[in-house]
């Protein structure tokens, strides 16, 4: 497989990989590194890749596993520390300004979700995957995906309403 051919296969879903990585790792740089790593892994496996009929699902699964490993590893310790720093109640002026934008509220709320719910809501509401695809990707049953999704959506709604009310008061 040539480089251009490889890029044609990868191009349609590379943003999806990045968005999933960013949802899980939060940091933009971390997500970029992760995506690059995944694309390079795919490139080195390009001979095997032609055998897969759904490269996108395979790549998404790789991204998911890679990011979860990342979060478990030592490096992620630092990452989480930084992350919890800026969701702290004593916010800097800059983050206050950021948070005043209700869209970034949603982003912050989603950061607080457990990893599985993060992935489910990302794959469904942002990427519009079908339940079966999500179930296969995450190794869950369809019902479990529905339950997790419902919980995630409700949590986002509740927290959004909460923040909204505080804003008014």
């Amino acid at each position, binding site marked *: 497989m040539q*480089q251009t051919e*490889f890029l044609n296969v990868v191009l349609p879903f*590379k*943003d999806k*990989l*990045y*968005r999933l990585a*960013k949802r899980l790792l939060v940091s933009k740089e971390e997500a*970029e590194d992760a*995506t*690059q790593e995944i*694309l*390079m892994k795919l*490139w*080195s496996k390009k001979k095997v890749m032609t055998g897969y009929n759904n490269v996108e699902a395979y790549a998404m699964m790789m991204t998911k596993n890679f990011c979860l490993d990342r979060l478990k590893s030592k490096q992620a310790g630092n990452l989480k520390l930084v992350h919890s720093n800026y969701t702290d109640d004593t916010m800097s002026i800059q983050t206050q300004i950021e948070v005043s934008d*209700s*869209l970034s*509220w*949603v*982003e912050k709320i989603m950061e607080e979700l457990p990893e599985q719910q993060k992935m489910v809501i*990302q794959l*469904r*509401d*942002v*990427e*519009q995957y*079908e339940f079966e695809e999500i179930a296969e990707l995450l190794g869950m049953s369809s019902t479990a995906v*529905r*339950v997790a*999704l*419902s919980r995630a*959506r*409700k949590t*986002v*709604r509740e927290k*959004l*309403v909460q923040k*909204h009310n505080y804003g008014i008061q």
Partner: protein
Amino acid sequence: MEYSNIEKLLERYFEATTTVAEEEVLREYFSREDIPLHLKKHAPMFQYFSVAKEERFTKQVPLKPRKNRYIKWISVAAVSILIFGIYFGRSYQEQREAEFAYQETKKALSLLATNLGRGTEKVAYLREFEETKQKIYNRN
């Protein structure tokens, strides 16, 4: 779209029983400006999903590091073979040249030897001559 319909959809949305198409309807609905007040609280959520989908991966990925590694090792091997080849080739050449010189010298020396032999033969005649001449002198 009627509000009641949207409300029903929303209810099912939070139970996660809507289809992808129905969720698309919701997203479209909440991207509008004129949302009734009691539904407005849901708007940021759907708007965020649309915005989040716009995010792009812009970093350039350097492809083909693996190939390079191969080429590097091949070139290292090629260079070392070349150096060894030159080294051994040269010593072999030197050996052949030395042998050739040796053969040439041997030939020259044997030529000299045969000519020398011929010379001594002639000298032997001379001696004969000298001896007879001495005899004659002695008689006198």
